[in-house]
């Protein structure tokens, strides 16, 4: 039986990808940020999963306004890094896990979440920046990511995005789906995006360190209460793009201490926590939680 071993949470700022790709990681501006991910890279080596279920949002790259799926699961055998207008990031293509992805799609849809199934999807910085941060830089031709990745897209571009509550419930459904897969795979679930940032208007550049950290505390200790945070609180307190944080609740909902039917398993162990301002316009938050049950 497959199981979820851990969840990882991280911002996915495009400028981090640019800094990596241009070899700027040791510059004074970027050094403190990348230093915060050094323990994470080691942790990834020590805890290599068989599959990563990676929750992110496409940034008007694979999905224009022609089609706007709220939740979309990538079931393809592979996914190419997208050209977002600056040329594709020089990173390896992403190898999927079509069998597990299709299994999760079938199970989760039968649990009443109406996923969109995607068999062709270029993946943008939302997906590749977290991989680079956690797995280190990889040569685009000779390198490879450490394991297959199932991309899971959430609409956070056109309002309303799905509620935190819905995302949290979806995480629980994904866990059930994973645990009903026969092969004994170790699966990590990653939630990406956030933390506080606003990329538009006179209020661009908003950062809310206190709110971000209180939200992180609650995500760890009382995720159900955290999932009740209304949309407008994200917008007002964490900026219009801070609403990406709902994606973290999908990963948190998939952890084994969360159980809709009553008492869950033991609380997860916090293996790493990191917070840094700024990366370009954004507050960077990062967590690694390991399951204990």
């Amino acid at each position, binding site marked *: 039986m497959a199981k979820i071993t851990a969840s990882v949470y991280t911002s996915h700022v*495009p*400028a981090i990808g*640019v800094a990596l790709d241009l070899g700027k990681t040791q510059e004074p*501006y970027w050094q403190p940020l990348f230093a915060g991910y050094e323990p994470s890279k080691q942790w990834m080596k020590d805890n290599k999963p068989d599959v990563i279920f990676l929750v992110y949002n496409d*940034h*008007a*790259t694979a999905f*224009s*306004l*022609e089609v706007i799926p709220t939740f979309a699961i990538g079931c393809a055998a592979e996914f190419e890094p997208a*050209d*977002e*207008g*600056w040329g594709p990031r020089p990173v390896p293509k992403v190898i999927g896990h079509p069998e597990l992805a299709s299994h999760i799609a079938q199970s989760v849809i039968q649990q009443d979440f109406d996923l969109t199934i995607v068999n062709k999807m270029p993946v943008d910085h939302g997906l590749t920046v977290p991989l680079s941060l956690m797995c280190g830089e990889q040569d685009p031709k000779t390198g490879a990511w450490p394991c297959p990745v199932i991309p899971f897209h959430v609409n956070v*571009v*056109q*309002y*309303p995005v799905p509620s935190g509550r819905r995302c949290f419930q979806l995480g629980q459904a994904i866990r059930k789906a994973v645990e009903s897969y026969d092969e004994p795979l170790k699966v990590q679930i990653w939630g990406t995006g956030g933390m*506080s940032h*606003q*990329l*538009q*208007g*006179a*209020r*661009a*550049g*908003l*950062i*809310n*360190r206190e*709110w971000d950290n209180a939200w992180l505390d609650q995500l760890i200790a009382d995720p159900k209460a955290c999932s009740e945070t209304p*949309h*407008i609180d994200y*917008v*007002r*307190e964490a900026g*219009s*793009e801070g609403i990406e944080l709902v994606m973290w609740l999908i990963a948190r909902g998939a952890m084994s201490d969360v159980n809709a039917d009553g008492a869950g398993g033991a609380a997860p162990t916090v293996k790493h926590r990191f917070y840094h*301002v*700024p990366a*370009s*316009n954004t*507050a960077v938050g990062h967590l690694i939680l390991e399951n204990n049950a």
Partner: protein
Amino acid sequence: MALDKPYKDVPGTIIFDADQSRKGYWLNQFCTSLMKAENRARFKADERAYLDEWPMTEEQKLAVMARDLNWCMRTGGNIYFLARIGATDGLSFQQMAGSMTGMTEAEYRDMMVKGGRSAEGNRYLGEDGDAQPHRQPQGAAGKKGN
């Protein structure tokens, strides 16, 4: 019955909802077209001619040619789509975001390095934070006129 839109009273912020999306459909689709290198080249060679291939409003075309991202957003643009124009011009997200505040690139970058813009006074219209309408433009540009 009208939908509840509690986000209308956040200063300096346009939430890209279904109404904005409908208004901005062709503007944003034009932006998407700039993800192809040959379209970027054609746009750069003759902006007006390229824009005229799209059923955008005249105001949207003027806003694009002026590179006024706040104006683009008022006419239905979304920042993730508008970023394709910035990419075509070789700008970073930070340069684009900063351009909407009236600050110079250096002023905006400096604000971010110092921890970013505070939420204090910027949660509701009518407060006195630096993102409020009566305090625009920001940075040195805002001080010159006073």
